[in-house]
């Protein structure tokens, strides 16, 4: 039989106490700091390897045209897609590029997609030369193999990238990591 004399507040306190008793211990401060660090600091060797790979991708066009140029297609951005089963070197076509109020909004489409489509990637922006990390963000699948990113961007980068148009050569390359890795 349920004791109907108990107040709701008491009941909630009792439930909270039980939940706290069953919950895992809160992570330590050092663990929280470690989790907050970007992955390239946690695994610098792996980052250097991937940055080297994406840095070697030759994405410039060779103009040996047989047909009139359909210009305006923008410049492909070298991209390295890293999943558990494969590392795919490809190019990303930037479809939307906008920096406003300290945020970068980016949409892109991969020329080649991994065998199994991913709902999202961890996108790391690295410089073309030297493979220096610039920022990381989540790239979520949108429509028709398009991925979108909406992230805060450091003020310095924002100033540098703000004048860029979507058809300009982009000052970064992409490492797209499966978020489950």
């Amino acid at each position, binding site marked *: 039989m349920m004791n109907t004399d108990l107040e709701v507040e008491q009941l909630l306190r009792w439930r909270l106490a039980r939940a706290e008793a069953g919950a895992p211990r809160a992570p330590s401060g050092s663990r929280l700091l470690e989790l907050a660090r970007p992955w390239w600091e946690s695994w610098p060797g792996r980052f250097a390897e991937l940055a080297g790979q994406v840095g070697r991708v030759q994405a410039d066009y060779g103009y040996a045209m047989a047909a009139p140029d359909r210009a305006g297609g923008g410049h492909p951005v070298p991209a390295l897609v890293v999943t558990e089963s494969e590392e795919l070197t490809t190019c990303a076509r930037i479809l939307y590029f906008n920096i406003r109020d300290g945020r970068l909004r980016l949409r892109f489409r991969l020329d080649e997609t991994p065998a199994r489509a991913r709902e999202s990637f961890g996108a790391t922006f690295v410089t073309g030369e030297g493979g220096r990390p610039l920022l990381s963000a989540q790239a979520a699948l949108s*429509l028709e193999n398009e991925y979108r990113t909406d992230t805060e961007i450091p003020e310095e980068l924002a100033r540098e990238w703000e004048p860029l148009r979507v058809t300009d050569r982009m000052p970064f390359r992409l490492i797209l990591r499966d978020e489950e890795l």
Partner: protein
Amino acid sequence: MNFVWFWSFWHWSKESFRDGSLLRNPLHGVGGHWDEWFRHEASENDRAAIAKTGRDEASQRRFISWLLVHWARETDLRENRLARRFVLAQIALAQPFKEWAAFEQYRTNRGLGGISAVVLGEGSPGKPEDVRQVEALALPMDTTAPAVVSEGFQADSFELETPRAAAARLLSGSGLLIFFVLWLAGGKRPYPRWLQLVLGLGWLAVGGLILYLLMGPDPADRLPLLTGALAALWIGLVMTAIATATTLGMSAWRQGRRLSARLEQSQVRLRMSGGLTLKGGSAALPFCLNMLVSIYRAEGRLARRSWLWRRLFEGIGARAGTWAATGAITPGGFLKPVVLESKLRACLKHDGIQRILTPRQPGVTSRSLARLAGTLAPSSSEAAAAPSNSSGVRFGFAAEEDCLSVHPCRHIAQAQMRLGGFNSPAQMAMNVFALAVSVTLLVALPDLRGILLPPAAPAASAPSSPSPEYLWVNLETKHPENFLVAMESHYWLNRRVEVVPRSAAGGSGRAEIRLQRSEAPENNDQEDGVVWIERRHWFLGREFAPGERVGRYSLSYLSRLGHE
């Protein structure tokens, strides 16, 4: 103003494209653009209005109608029905439309219904799901993207450009010429049934008249009438055929050039489900045919002026669901052999496919196909175990409706003939007959001219024969074969002699009459007698009775000609 929020989105899309934030133009990138706008740019008021529109299916449908009619009118898409459907299909995949029931039909397909391709999955021996419907949509050219865009599958650009090049040639190049020649040889004509019957009877009448003139009784005085009727009938039929062919050919050529220009200025989006990466070019044939259909649909109003194009594309539109195609092609439109057995097996197992276009290649024989069908037939035990499940083998070699008909082709133009339902054995038989009759008449043309437009009556000229045993009749004519010389005398034997061309002197002929005294002459006057010049009529080697007498000379005149 209705649906202001959509105008807000459209304006944002145009402005963002103009200022260089968006790569694709507002039409081609509409799906992604909407997604971006809805997530980050839509105001609270916009969101509330959108939510209000999506509240029930009736108001969702009102929005779709508004988009198709009013919005399209304002955005210059009124003429392009497919582009409007493309917009709906694109935004149907984005929030919040992907939750709206009224958009269901636009999410699943564009309702374009193309010819299916047979693309085998990895290691597939030929399954029904290997038959994949291909949809093609022609949109205005997008300068930021290739001319042919694949959706739902990946392919090398070469695999997509070749069908496009072949489609362009089919519309206005060598492919159109081949298609036109095939249609001339055995394609259905746009005549009403009664006219078809009249023309058929006309050609039979021409054939009958030729036979009559060759083998019938001598028509005597009716010869000019009969040959006149023959010539008039033949000319009438030939002119009708030429006028029809010229009119339809010119119209097809003109509209084909327009369609080709449209193709040049269009981006064709090919959609095929399955997410496959294509290896090999056997899907090129259905790609090419569907590209043609997409251009016609985009340009419909103009292209419908050509009977040939209209019949072809309406035929494809009506039957697309039951057709599949496989074959690699060259830019010129010729089909190259492909692996076929597994694809035929897939079609045999597929419920909807009744006909398949294939390259003409070794192995596509009725026997090999029967063997293949035999391997698919359920064994008696299987049939007994699952009688309701055994659909049986639907097989035939260009046979009846409910079987799989295989149509081997060497060129896409042959596929067009099949798809448009142009092939007509009766027309081909009539064409062969008409051709044979026409060749016969062309051979007989000099003979007909000799009857209907006879040469001028010739005059006799010198010299006369130096021998007293012969009488020479020299005639000044370029057509000596059209004349006879007849001598009538009471002293000499009457004779009728043909006029032989004189090789030494062109434009004249000579009849040499041997003078032989009659056994019972009625007088002793050696100069008694008259020489008649008669017309001589031929038809393909048959000589008719002598015709009209066009000259008369006395024997004495002719024997002294040139000696005075």
